[in-house]
Protein backbone atom coordinates (compact mmCIF):
# COMPACT_ATOMS: atom_id res chain seq x y z
CA UNK A 1 0.00 0.00 0.00
CA UNK A 2 2.75 2.45 0.96
CA UNK A 3 4.79 1.41 -2.07
CA UNK A 4 1.73 1.99 -4.24
CA UNK A 5 1.21 5.50 -2.87
CA UNK A 6 4.93 6.27 -3.00
CA UNK A 7 5.18 5.28 -6.66
CA UNK A 8 2.42 7.72 -7.61
CA UNK A 9 3.93 10.44 -5.42
CA UNK A 10 7.40 9.96 -6.86
CA UNK A 11 5.96 10.61 -10.30
CA UNK A 12 4.86 14.03 -9.06
CA UNK A 13 8.28 14.54 -7.45
CA UNK A 14 9.92 13.76 -10.80
CA UNK A 15 7.75 16.32 -12.57
CA UNK A 16 8.55 19.05 -10.05
CA UNK A 17 12.24 18.28 -10.02
CA UNK A 18 12.05 18.78 -13.79
CA UNK A 19 11.12 22.40 -13.11
CA UNK A 20 13.78 23.05 -10.49
CA UNK A 21 16.68 21.04 -11.90
CA UNK A 22 17.31 22.23 -15.42
CA UNK A 23 20.06 19.74 -16.16
CA UNK A 24 18.90 16.62 -18.02
CA UNK A 25 21.65 14.59 -16.39
CA UNK A 26 20.02 15.04 -12.98
CA UNK A 27 16.93 13.08 -14.02
CA UNK A 28 18.40 9.58 -13.79
CA UNK A 29 19.76 9.91 -10.22
CA UNK A 30 16.40 11.23 -8.95
CA UNK A 31 14.57 8.37 -10.64
CA UNK A 32 17.02 5.76 -9.36
CA UNK A 33 16.68 7.15 -5.82
CA UNK A 34 12.92 6.80 -6.15
CA UNK A 35 13.02 3.25 -7.38
CA UNK A 36 15.45 2.22 -4.65
CA UNK A 37 13.12 3.80 -2.07
CA UNK A 38 10.25 1.81 -3.60
CA UNK A 39 12.27 -1.40 -3.39
CA UNK A 40 13.11 -0.80 0.27
CA UNK A 41 9.51 0.08 1.16
CA UNK A 42 8.11 -2.94 -0.63
CA UNK A 43 10.66 -5.17 1.10
CA UNK A 44 9.64 -3.77 4.50
CA UNK A 45 5.98 -4.22 3.61
CA UNK A 46 6.62 -7.80 2.55
CA UNK A 47 8.14 -8.50 5.97
CA UNK A 48 5.22 -6.66 7.62
CA UNK A 49 7.56 -4.13 9.23
CA UNK A 50 5.72 -1.27 7.58
CA UNK A 51 1.96 -1.38 7.51
CA UNK A 52 -0.64 1.18 6.52
CA UNK A 53 -4.15 0.41 7.68
CA UNK A 54 -6.36 2.47 5.41
CA UNK A 55 -10.03 1.74 4.89
CA UNK A 56 -10.17 0.84 1.22
CA UNK A 57 -13.32 -1.29 1.56
CA UNK A 58 -11.51 -4.41 0.41
CA UNK A 59 -10.98 -2.99 -3.06
CA UNK A 60 -7.34 -4.05 -2.97
CA UNK A 61 -6.04 -7.28 -1.50
CA UNK A 62 -2.39 -7.45 -0.51
CA UNK A 63 -1.24 -11.02 -0.98
CA UNK A 64 2.29 -12.42 -0.82
CA UNK A 65 2.04 -13.20 -4.54
CA UNK A 66 1.34 -9.58 -5.40
CA UNK A 67 4.05 -8.29 -3.09
CA UNK A 68 6.71 -10.58 -4.54
CA UNK A 69 5.61 -9.62 -8.02
CA UNK A 70 5.80 -5.87 -7.38
CA UNK A 71 9.21 -6.48 -5.84
CA UNK A 72 10.32 -8.17 -9.08
CA UNK A 73 8.84 -5.31 -11.10
CA UNK A 74 10.64 -2.62 -9.08
CA UNK A 75 13.91 -4.52 -9.31
CA UNK A 76 13.64 -4.91 -13.09
CA UNK A 77 12.75 -1.23 -13.39
CA UNK A 78 15.86 -0.33 -11.38
CA UNK A 79 18.04 -2.30 -13.79
CA UNK A 80 16.16 -0.79 -16.71
CA UNK A 81 16.77 2.76 -15.43
CA UNK A 82 20.49 2.17 -14.88
CA UNK A 83 21.01 0.53 -18.27
CA UNK A 84 19.04 3.12 -20.23
CA UNK A 85 19.91 6.37 -18.45
CA UNK A 86 21.86 7.68 -21.45
CA UNK A 87 19.11 6.79 -23.93
CA UNK A 88 16.45 8.63 -21.95
CA UNK A 89 18.48 11.82 -22.36
CA UNK A 90 18.76 11.26 -26.11
CA UNK A 91 15.09 10.55 -26.73
CA UNK A 92 13.90 14.11 -26.23
CA UNK A 93 14.04 17.18 -24.04
CA UNK A 94 11.50 16.04 -21.43
CA UNK A 95 13.67 13.50 -19.63
CA UNK A 96 12.11 14.15 -16.23
CA UNK A 97 8.62 13.65 -17.63
CA UNK A 98 9.52 10.29 -19.16
CA UNK A 99 10.63 9.05 -15.77
CA UNK A 100 7.53 10.57 -14.16
CA UNK A 101 5.28 8.70 -16.61
CA UNK A 102 7.11 5.47 -15.81
CA UNK A 103 6.48 5.99 -12.09
CA UNK A 104 2.79 6.51 -12.83
CA UNK A 105 2.83 3.27 -14.80
CA UNK A 106 4.40 1.55 -11.78
CA UNK A 107 1.49 2.70 -9.61
CA UNK A 108 -0.90 1.29 -12.22
CA UNK A 109 1.01 -1.99 -12.08
CA UNK A 110 0.51 -1.95 -8.31
CA UNK A 111 -3.25 -1.61 -8.84
CA UNK A 112 -3.49 -4.49 -11.31
CA UNK A 113 -1.49 -6.80 -9.07
CA UNK A 114 -3.54 -6.07 -5.95
CA UNK A 115 -7.02 -5.46 -7.40
CA UNK A 116 -9.97 -7.06 -5.72
CA UNK A 117 -12.74 -5.33 -7.67
CA UNK A 118 -13.17 -4.86 -11.39
CA UNK A 119 -13.12 -1.09 -10.80
CA UNK A 120 -9.51 -1.27 -9.63
CA UNK A 121 -8.63 -3.58 -12.51
CA UNK A 122 -10.04 -1.10 -15.01
CA UNK A 123 -8.33 1.89 -13.37
CA UNK A 124 -5.04 0.01 -13.16
CA UNK A 125 -5.11 -0.99 -16.81
CA UNK A 126 -5.90 2.59 -17.82
CA UNK A 127 -3.21 4.07 -15.58
CA UNK A 128 -0.74 1.72 -17.26
CA UNK A 129 -1.97 2.46 -20.78
CA UNK A 130 -2.42 6.23 -20.90
CA UNK A 131 1.20 7.13 -19.98
CA UNK A 132 2.38 4.47 -22.43
CA UNK A 133 0.52 6.15 -25.31
CA UNK A 134 2.53 9.28 -24.56
CA UNK A 135 5.82 7.41 -24.15
CA UNK A 136 5.31 5.54 -27.42
CA UNK A 137 5.07 8.90 -29.19
CA UNK A 138 7.87 10.59 -27.29
CA UNK A 139 10.02 10.87 -30.42
CA UNK A 140 7.77 13.64 -31.70
CA UNK A 141 9.38 14.37 -35.05
CA UNK A 142 9.66 10.74 -36.05
CA UNK A 143 6.73 9.54 -38.17
CA UNK A 144 7.15 5.95 -37.05
CA UNK A 145 6.89 6.97 -33.44
CA UNK A 146 3.75 9.05 -34.17
CA UNK A 147 2.23 6.12 -35.91
CA UNK A 148 3.08 3.69 -33.12
CA UNK A 149 1.58 6.04 -30.58
CA UNK A 150 -1.66 6.55 -32.54
CA UNK A 151 -2.05 2.87 -33.28
CA UNK A 152 -1.41 1.91 -29.69
CA UNK A 153 -3.86 4.53 -28.51
CA UNK A 154 -6.66 3.42 -30.85
CA UNK A 155 -6.16 -0.26 -30.06
CA UNK A 156 -5.82 0.39 -26.33
CA UNK A 157 -8.99 2.50 -26.15
CA UNK A 158 -10.87 -0.02 -28.28
CA UNK A 159 -9.91 -2.92 -26.04
CA UNK A 160 -10.78 -0.86 -22.95
CA UNK A 161 -14.26 -0.39 -24.42
CA UNK A 162 -14.61 -4.14 -24.86
CA UNK A 163 -13.37 -4.73 -21.32
CA UNK A 164 -15.92 -2.24 -19.95
CA UNK A 165 -18.75 -3.99 -21.77
CA UNK A 166 -17.63 -7.27 -20.22
CA UNK A 167 -17.54 -5.66 -16.77
CA UNK A 168 -21.04 -4.21 -17.30
CA UNK A 169 -22.44 -7.63 -18.17
CA UNK A 170 -20.79 -9.24 -15.17
CA UNK A 171 -22.24 -6.50 -12.99
CA UNK A 172 -25.68 -7.11 -14.46
CA UNK A 173 -25.46 -10.81 -13.70
CA UNK A 174 -23.94 -10.63 -10.24
CA UNK A 175 -24.80 -7.18 -8.83
CA UNK A 176 -21.26 -6.56 -7.62
CA UNK A 177 -17.84 -5.58 -8.90
CA UNK A 178 -15.99 -7.56 -6.24
CA UNK A 179 -14.32 -10.56 -7.81
CA UNK A 180 -15.32 -12.83 -4.91
CA UNK A 181 -18.95 -11.92 -5.55
CA UNK A 182 -18.54 -12.64 -9.23
CA UNK A 183 -16.96 -15.97 -8.39
CA UNK A 184 -20.09 -16.84 -6.39
CA UNK A 185 -22.36 -15.69 -9.21
CA UNK A 186 -20.59 -17.84 -11.82
CA UNK A 187 -22.11 -20.92 -10.17
CA UNK A 188 -25.24 -20.41 -12.25
CA UNK A 189 -23.46 -20.01 -15.59
CA UNK A 190 -25.95 -17.61 -17.19
CA UNK A 191 -25.54 -16.22 -20.73
CA UNK A 192 -24.72 -12.81 -19.28
CA UNK A 193 -21.78 -14.25 -17.31
CA UNK A 194 -20.62 -16.09 -20.42
CA UNK A 195 -20.73 -12.92 -22.54
CA UNK A 196 -18.89 -10.97 -19.86
CA UNK A 197 -16.24 -13.66 -19.59
CA UNK A 198 -15.62 -13.80 -23.32
CA UNK A 199 -15.45 -10.01 -23.62
CA UNK A 200 -12.95 -9.83 -20.76
CA UNK A 201 -10.94 -12.64 -22.33
CA UNK A 202 -10.79 -10.73 -25.62
CA UNK A 203 -9.76 -7.47 -24.01
CA UNK A 204 -7.10 -9.08 -21.82
CA UNK A 205 -5.77 -10.88 -24.91
CA UNK A 206 -5.48 -7.48 -26.56
CA UNK A 207 -3.52 -6.13 -23.62
CA UNK A 208 -1.09 -9.05 -23.45
CA UNK A 209 -0.90 -9.20 -27.27
CA UNK A 210 -2.14 -12.76 -27.66
CA UNK A 211 -3.15 -13.96 -31.11
CA UNK A 212 -5.50 -13.23 -32.89
CA UNK A 213 -5.44 -9.83 -31.16
CA UNK A 214 -1.69 -9.31 -31.48
CA UNK A 215 -1.61 -7.41 -34.80
CA UNK A 216 -0.86 -4.04 -33.21
CA UNK A 217 2.15 -5.32 -31.28
CA UNK A 218 4.95 -5.58 -33.87
CA UNK A 219 4.18 -2.16 -35.36
CA UNK A 220 3.90 -0.44 -32.00
CA UNK A 221 7.03 -2.08 -30.59
CA UNK A 222 8.97 -1.39 -33.76
CA UNK A 223 7.88 2.23 -34.09
CA UNK A 224 8.32 3.36 -30.50
CA UNK A 225 11.73 4.59 -29.35
CA UNK A 226 13.73 1.47 -28.44
CA UNK A 227 14.09 2.51 -24.82
CA UNK A 228 10.28 2.62 -24.48
CA UNK A 229 9.85 -0.66 -26.34
CA UNK A 230 12.15 -2.29 -23.84
CA UNK A 231 9.80 -1.25 -21.02
CA UNK A 232 6.56 -2.04 -22.86
CA UNK A 233 7.65 -5.49 -23.96
CA UNK A 234 8.82 -6.55 -20.52
CA UNK A 235 7.48 -5.00 -17.35
CA UNK A 236 4.14 -3.82 -18.69
CA UNK A 237 3.52 -7.11 -20.43
CA UNK A 238 4.21 -9.29 -17.39
CA UNK A 239 2.04 -6.97 -15.28
CA UNK A 240 -0.85 -7.47 -17.69
CA UNK A 241 -0.28 -11.20 -17.36
CA UNK A 242 -0.53 -11.05 -13.60
CA UNK A 243 -3.82 -9.15 -13.98
CA UNK A 244 -5.01 -11.76 -16.48
CA UNK A 245 -4.07 -14.65 -14.19
CA UNK A 246 -5.58 -13.09 -11.07
CA UNK A 247 -8.82 -12.15 -12.83
CA UNK A 248 -9.38 -15.57 -14.33
CA UNK A 249 -8.22 -17.39 -11.22
CA UNK A 250 -10.22 -15.48 -8.64
CA UNK A 251 -13.31 -14.50 -10.59
CA UNK A 252 -13.74 -17.40 -13.01
CA UNK A 253 -11.82 -20.17 -11.27
CA UNK A 254 -14.97 -22.16 -10.63
CA UNK A 255 -15.94 -22.40 -14.28
CA UNK A 256 -12.40 -23.16 -15.41
CA UNK A 257 -13.56 -26.15 -17.41
CA UNK A 258 -15.88 -23.98 -19.51
CA UNK A 259 -13.28 -21.53 -20.79
CA UNK A 260 -10.12 -23.61 -20.67
CA UNK A 261 -10.41 -24.72 -24.28
CA UNK A 262 -10.71 -21.08 -25.42
CA UNK A 263 -7.47 -20.18 -23.65
CA UNK A 264 -5.81 -23.31 -25.06
CA UNK A 265 -6.70 -22.24 -28.59
CA UNK A 266 -5.48 -18.67 -27.99
CA UNK A 267 -2.23 -20.03 -26.51
CA UNK A 268 -1.61 -22.32 -29.46
CA UNK A 269 -2.32 -19.55 -31.97
CA UNK A 270 -0.06 -17.11 -30.10
CA UNK A 271 2.82 -19.58 -29.92
CA UNK A 272 2.45 -20.45 -33.58
CA UNK A 273 2.14 -16.93 -34.99
CA UNK A 274 4.78 -15.42 -32.70
CA UNK A 275 7.42 -18.05 -33.41
CA UNK A 276 6.81 -18.53 -37.12
CA UNK A 277 6.78 -14.81 -37.95
CA UNK A 278 9.84 -14.13 -35.83
CA UNK A 279 11.81 -16.51 -38.05
CA UNK A 280 11.39 -14.22 -41.06
CA UNK A 281 12.41 -10.93 -39.43
CA UNK A 282 15.54 -9.15 -40.61
CA UNK A 283 15.64 -6.49 -37.91
CA UNK A 284 16.68 -7.62 -34.46
CA UNK A 285 14.36 -5.09 -32.82
CA UNK A 286 11.38 -6.40 -34.78
CA UNK A 287 12.47 -9.98 -34.09
CA UNK A 288 12.42 -9.20 -30.36
CA UNK A 289 8.88 -7.79 -30.74
CA UNK A 290 7.70 -11.03 -32.32
CA UNK A 291 9.63 -12.99 -29.73
CA UNK A 292 7.67 -11.09 -27.07
CA UNK A 293 4.47 -12.41 -28.67
CA UNK A 294 5.93 -15.90 -28.64
CA UNK A 295 6.93 -15.58 -24.97
CA UNK A 296 3.42 -14.29 -24.24
CA UNK A 297 2.19 -17.63 -25.58
CA UNK A 298 4.27 -19.39 -22.95
CA UNK A 299 3.01 -17.14 -20.19
CA UNK A 300 -0.56 -17.86 -21.31
CA UNK A 301 0.06 -21.46 -20.25
CA UNK A 302 -0.17 -20.16 -16.68
CA UNK A 303 -3.69 -18.86 -17.31
CA UNK A 304 -4.47 -22.15 -19.01
CA UNK A 305 -3.42 -24.38 -16.12
CA UNK A 306 -4.20 -22.18 -13.03
CA UNK A 307 -2.39 -24.22 -10.36
CA UNK A 308 0.46 -23.57 -7.95
CA UNK A 309 3.06 -24.40 -10.60
CA UNK A 310 1.47 -21.80 -12.84
CA UNK A 311 1.63 -19.10 -10.17
CA UNK A 312 5.21 -19.86 -9.12
CA UNK A 313 6.12 -20.20 -12.77
CA UNK A 314 4.60 -16.87 -13.72
CA UNK A 315 6.68 -15.01 -11.11
CA UNK A 316 9.77 -16.84 -12.32
CA UNK A 317 8.87 -16.19 -15.94
CA UNK A 318 8.27 -12.53 -15.18
CA UNK A 319 11.75 -12.21 -13.68
CA UNK A 320 13.55 -14.35 -16.26
CA UNK A 321 11.88 -12.85 -19.29
CA UNK A 322 12.08 -9.23 -18.09
CA UNK A 323 15.75 -9.42 -17.12
CA UNK A 324 16.80 -11.16 -20.32
CA UNK A 325 14.77 -8.92 -22.62
CA UNK A 326 15.79 -5.69 -20.88
CA UNK A 327 19.41 -6.80 -21.16
CA UNK A 328 19.06 -7.79 -24.79
CA UNK A 329 17.34 -4.52 -25.68
CA UNK A 330 20.05 -2.61 -23.83
CA UNK A 331 22.61 -4.18 -26.18
CA UNK A 332 20.43 -3.56 -29.25
CA UNK A 333 20.08 0.14 -28.35
CA UNK A 334 23.86 0.50 -28.36
CA UNK A 335 24.10 -0.80 -31.94
CA UNK A 336 24.36 1.59 -34.88
CA UNK A 337 22.35 -0.75 -37.12
CA UNK A 338 19.43 -2.78 -35.79
CA UNK A 339 19.36 -5.22 -38.70
CA UNK A 340 20.80 -8.70 -38.43
CA UNK A 341 23.77 -7.71 -40.63
CA UNK A 342 24.51 -4.95 -38.15
CA UNK A 343 25.42 -7.62 -35.62
CA UNK A 344 27.95 -9.34 -37.89
CA UNK A 345 31.27 -9.66 -36.15
CA UNK A 346 30.20 -8.07 -32.86
CA UNK A 347 32.04 -10.89 -31.10
CA UNK A 348 35.33 -9.42 -32.35
CA UNK A 349 34.67 -5.69 -32.10
CA UNK A 350 32.77 -5.71 -28.77
CA UNK A 351 33.40 -9.10 -27.12
CA UNK A 352 31.78 -8.05 -23.85
CA UNK A 353 28.47 -6.88 -25.35
CA UNK A 354 28.35 -9.96 -27.56
CA UNK A 355 28.91 -12.33 -24.64
CA UNK A 356 26.23 -10.66 -22.53
CA UNK A 357 23.76 -10.67 -25.43
CA UNK A 358 24.47 -14.38 -25.94
CA UNK A 359 23.58 -15.15 -22.32
CA UNK A 360 20.33 -13.19 -22.59
CA UNK A 361 19.37 -14.85 -25.87
CA UNK A 362 20.16 -18.31 -24.45
CA UNK A 363 17.90 -17.53 -21.51
CA UNK A 364 15.11 -16.43 -23.85
CA UNK A 365 15.49 -19.71 -25.74
CA UNK A 366 15.29 -21.65 -22.49
CA UNK A 367 18.67 -23.37 -22.42
CA UNK A 368 19.42 -25.10 -19.07
CA UNK A 369 21.53 -23.15 -16.53
CA UNK A 370 19.71 -19.96 -17.48
CA UNK A 371 16.59 -18.60 -15.82
CA UNK A 372 14.55 -19.06 -18.98
CA UNK A 373 14.87 -22.83 -18.70
CA UNK A 374 13.18 -23.14 -15.34
CA UNK A 375 10.57 -20.54 -16.28
CA UNK A 376 9.53 -22.59 -19.29
CA UNK A 377 9.84 -25.82 -17.27
CA UNK A 378 7.41 -24.57 -14.60
CA UNK A 379 4.91 -23.48 -17.25
CA UNK A 380 5.04 -26.85 -19.00
CA UNK A 381 4.87 -28.88 -15.79
CA UNK A 382 1.88 -26.80 -14.70
CA UNK A 383 0.11 -27.56 -17.95
CA UNK A 384 0.96 -31.28 -17.65
CA UNK A 385 -0.30 -31.48 -14.06
CA UNK A 386 -3.48 -29.78 -15.16
CA UNK A 387 -4.24 -32.95 -17.07
CA UNK A 388 -6.32 -31.57 -19.93
CA UNK A 389 -5.30 -30.80 -23.51
CA UNK A 390 -1.93 -32.53 -23.45
CA UNK A 391 -1.42 -31.70 -27.14
CA UNK A 392 -0.84 -28.11 -26.08
CA UNK A 393 2.25 -29.11 -24.07
CA UNK A 394 3.76 -30.98 -27.01
CA UNK A 395 2.96 -28.06 -29.29
CA UNK A 396 4.60 -25.61 -26.87
CA UNK A 397 7.80 -27.69 -26.75
CA UNK A 398 7.92 -27.82 -30.55
CA UNK A 399 7.50 -24.06 -30.74
CA UNK A 400 10.25 -23.56 -28.17
CA UNK A 401 12.51 -25.56 -30.49
CA UNK A 402 11.61 -23.27 -33.39
CA UNK A 403 12.39 -20.23 -31.26
CA UNK A 404 15.97 -21.48 -30.95
CA UNK A 405 16.41 -20.81 -34.66
CA UNK A 406 15.87 -17.06 -34.60
CA UNK A 407 17.66 -16.47 -31.31
CA UNK A 408 20.67 -18.47 -32.44
CA UNK A 409 20.75 -16.59 -35.72
CA UNK A 410 21.75 -13.46 -33.79
CA UNK A 411 24.44 -15.39 -31.91
CA UNK A 412 25.68 -16.81 -35.19
CA UNK A 413 25.85 -13.33 -36.70
CA UNK A 414 27.82 -12.06 -33.73
CA UNK A 415 30.44 -14.80 -33.63
CA UNK A 416 30.61 -16.65 -36.92
CA UNK A 417 30.05 -13.98 -39.56
CA UNK A 418 32.60 -11.55 -40.90
CA UNK A 419 31.87 -7.89 -40.49
CA UNK A 420 32.61 -4.97 -38.28
CA UNK A 421 29.55 -4.27 -36.16
CA UNK A 422 29.58 -0.75 -34.79
CA UNK A 423 28.36 0.00 -31.30
CA UNK A 424 28.16 3.24 -29.36
CA UNK A 425 30.66 3.60 -26.50
CA UNK A 426 29.35 2.27 -23.20
CA UNK A 427 30.07 3.49 -19.68
CA UNK A 428 31.58 1.40 -16.90
CA UNK A 429 28.33 1.53 -14.90
CA UNK A 430 26.48 0.13 -17.91
CA UNK A 431 28.99 -2.71 -18.22
CA UNK A 432 28.82 -3.69 -14.56
CA UNK A 433 25.02 -3.56 -14.49
CA UNK A 434 24.81 -5.67 -17.62
CA UNK A 435 27.24 -8.16 -16.10
CA UNK A 436 25.18 -8.21 -12.90
CA UNK A 437 21.98 -8.84 -14.87
CA UNK A 438 23.59 -11.70 -16.75
CA UNK A 439 24.87 -13.20 -13.48
CA UNK A 440 21.38 -12.93 -12.06
CA UNK A 441 19.94 -14.75 -15.08
CA UNK A 442 22.41 -17.59 -14.48
CA UNK A 443 21.91 -17.70 -10.69
CA UNK A 444 18.13 -17.85 -11.15
CA UNK A 445 18.70 -20.60 -13.68
CA UNK A 446 20.54 -22.68 -11.09
CA UNK A 447 18.48 -21.86 -8.00
CA UNK A 448 14.94 -20.87 -9.05
CA UNK A 449 13.77 -21.55 -5.49
CA UNK A 450 15.51 -18.31 -4.44
CA UNK A 451 12.54 -16.51 -5.95
CA UNK A 452 9.70 -19.00 -5.67
CA UNK A 453 10.19 -19.67 -1.97
CA UNK A 454 9.53 -15.97 -1.30
CA UNK A 455 5.89 -16.66 -2.13
CA UNK A 456 5.36 -18.62 1.08
Amino acid at each position, binding site marked *: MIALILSALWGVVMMFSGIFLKNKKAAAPVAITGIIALLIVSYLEYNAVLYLDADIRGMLKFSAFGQVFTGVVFFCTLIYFILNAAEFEETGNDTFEYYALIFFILSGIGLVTYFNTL*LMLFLGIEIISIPLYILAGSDKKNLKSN*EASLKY*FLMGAFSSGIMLMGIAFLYGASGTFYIDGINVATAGFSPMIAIGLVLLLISMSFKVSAAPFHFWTPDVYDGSPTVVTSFMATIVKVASFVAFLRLFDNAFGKVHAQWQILVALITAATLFIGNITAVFQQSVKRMLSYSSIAQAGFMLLAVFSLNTFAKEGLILYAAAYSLATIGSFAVVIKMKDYSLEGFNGLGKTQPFLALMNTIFLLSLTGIPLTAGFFAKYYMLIGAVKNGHQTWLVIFAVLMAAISAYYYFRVIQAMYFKEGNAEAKPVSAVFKYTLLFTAMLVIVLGMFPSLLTKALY
Partner: protein
Amino acid sequence: MTINHYIFLSVALFCIGIIGVLTRRNVIIIFMCIELMFNAVNLLLVAFSKMHYLAASVIDPATTAGTDGQLFVFFIMVVAAAEVSVGLAIIVMMYRNTHSIDASFLNRLKH
Protein backbone atom coordinates in the same frame (compact mmCIF):
# COMPACT_ATOMS: atom_id res chain seq x y z
CA MET B 1 -39.54 -0.63 -20.09
CA THR B 2 -37.88 -3.79 -18.94
CA ILE B 3 -34.16 -4.30 -18.54
CA ASN B 4 -34.09 -6.11 -21.87
CA HIS B 5 -34.87 -2.90 -23.71
CA TYR B 6 -31.89 -1.21 -22.13
CA ILE B 7 -29.64 -4.15 -22.86
CA PHE B 8 -30.76 -4.15 -26.46
CA LEU B 9 -30.22 -0.39 -26.85
CA SER B 10 -26.74 -0.48 -25.28
CA VAL B 11 -25.59 -3.47 -27.25
CA ALA B 12 -26.85 -1.82 -30.45
CA LEU B 13 -24.93 1.38 -29.65
CA PHE B 14 -21.86 -0.68 -28.73
CA CYS B 15 -22.00 -2.59 -32.03
CA ILE B 16 -22.37 0.66 -33.99
CA GLY B 17 -19.24 1.83 -32.21
CA ILE B 18 -17.31 -1.36 -33.03
CA ILE B 19 -18.35 -1.30 -36.67
CA GLY B 20 -17.37 2.35 -36.86
CA VAL B 21 -13.91 1.65 -35.44
CA LEU B 22 -13.36 -1.20 -37.86
CA THR B 23 -14.63 0.48 -41.04
CA ARG B 24 -14.03 4.24 -40.86
CA ARG B 25 -10.76 5.78 -42.06
CA ASN B 26 -10.90 9.17 -40.37
CA VAL B 27 -9.11 9.06 -37.02
CA ILE B 28 -11.51 11.56 -35.40
CA ILE B 29 -14.50 9.44 -36.41
CA ILE B 30 -12.81 6.30 -35.06
CA PHE B 31 -12.23 8.21 -31.87
CA MET B 32 -15.90 9.21 -31.66
CA CYS B 33 -16.94 5.59 -32.21
CA ILE B 34 -14.76 4.56 -29.26
CA GLU B 35 -16.52 7.20 -27.15
CA LEU B 36 -19.83 5.75 -28.33
CA MET B 37 -18.71 2.34 -27.05
CA PHE B 38 -17.84 3.85 -23.66
CA ASN B 39 -21.18 5.61 -23.42
CA ALA B 40 -23.12 2.50 -24.36
CA VAL B 41 -21.43 0.86 -21.37
CA ASN B 42 -22.36 3.82 -19.16
CA LEU B 43 -26.00 3.48 -20.13
CA LEU B 44 -25.95 -0.24 -19.44
CA LEU B 45 -24.30 0.22 -16.06
CA VAL B 46 -26.88 2.77 -14.96
CA ALA B 47 -29.71 0.51 -16.13
CA PHE B 48 -28.27 -2.48 -14.24
CA SER B 49 -27.74 -0.31 -11.19
CA LYS B 50 -31.41 0.67 -11.17
CA MET B 51 -32.40 -2.94 -11.74
CA HIS B 52 -30.39 -4.18 -8.76
CA TYR B 53 -31.76 -1.32 -6.63
CA LEU B 54 -35.37 -2.16 -7.48
CA ALA B 55 -34.80 -5.84 -6.79
CA ALA B 56 -33.20 -5.12 -3.40
CA SER B 57 -35.61 -2.36 -2.31
CA VAL B 58 -38.51 -4.82 -2.25
CA ILE B 59 -36.86 -6.55 0.72
CA ASP B 60 -35.22 -3.53 2.35
CA PRO B 61 -36.49 -0.05 1.35
CA ALA B 62 -33.34 1.67 2.67
CA THR B 63 -30.94 -0.42 0.60
CA THR B 64 -27.87 1.01 -1.10
CA ALA B 65 -27.66 -1.78 -3.65
CA GLY B 66 -26.75 -0.55 -7.09
CA THR B 67 -24.89 2.60 -6.07
CA ASP B 68 -21.54 1.13 -7.06
CA GLY B 69 -22.77 0.77 -10.64
CA GLN B 70 -23.45 4.49 -10.83
CA LEU B 71 -20.11 5.28 -9.21
CA PHE B 72 -18.37 3.20 -11.84
CA VAL B 73 -19.93 5.44 -14.50
CA PHE B 74 -18.17 8.46 -13.04
CA PHE B 75 -14.85 6.64 -13.15
CA ILE B 76 -15.45 5.74 -16.79
CA MET B 77 -16.19 9.40 -17.57
CA VAL B 78 -12.99 10.55 -15.86
CA VAL B 79 -10.88 7.95 -17.64
CA ALA B 80 -12.53 8.75 -20.98
CA ALA B 81 -11.74 12.45 -20.45
CA ALA B 82 -8.10 11.60 -19.70
CA GLU B 83 -7.97 9.46 -22.80
CA VAL B 84 -9.47 12.21 -24.95
CA SER B 85 -6.85 14.68 -23.81
CA VAL B 86 -4.01 12.32 -24.63
CA GLY B 87 -5.61 11.04 -27.81
CA LEU B 88 -6.30 14.46 -29.29
CA ALA B 89 -2.74 15.49 -28.50
CA ILE B 90 -1.48 12.45 -30.39
CA ILE B 91 -3.75 13.25 -33.34
CA VAL B 92 -2.53 16.87 -33.41
CA MET B 93 1.07 15.65 -33.28
CA MET B 94 0.40 13.37 -36.22
CA TYR B 95 -1.38 16.12 -38.14
CA ARG B 96 1.62 18.42 -37.74
CA ASN B 97 3.87 15.84 -39.34
CA THR B 98 1.64 14.49 -42.11
CA HIS B 99 -1.10 17.10 -42.63
CA SER B 100 -3.72 14.38 -42.68
CA ILE B 101 -5.85 12.53 -40.17
CA ASP B 102 -6.44 9.49 -42.33
CA ALA B 103 -5.96 6.13 -40.68
CA SER B 104 -4.62 4.49 -43.83
CA PHE B 105 -1.43 6.27 -42.79
CA LEU B 106 -1.21 3.58 -40.14
CA ASN B 107 -0.26 0.95 -42.67
CA ARG B 108 3.07 2.52 -43.44
CA LEU B 109 4.89 0.70 -40.65
CA LYS B 110 4.23 -2.69 -42.16
CA HIS B 111 6.80 -2.11 -44.88
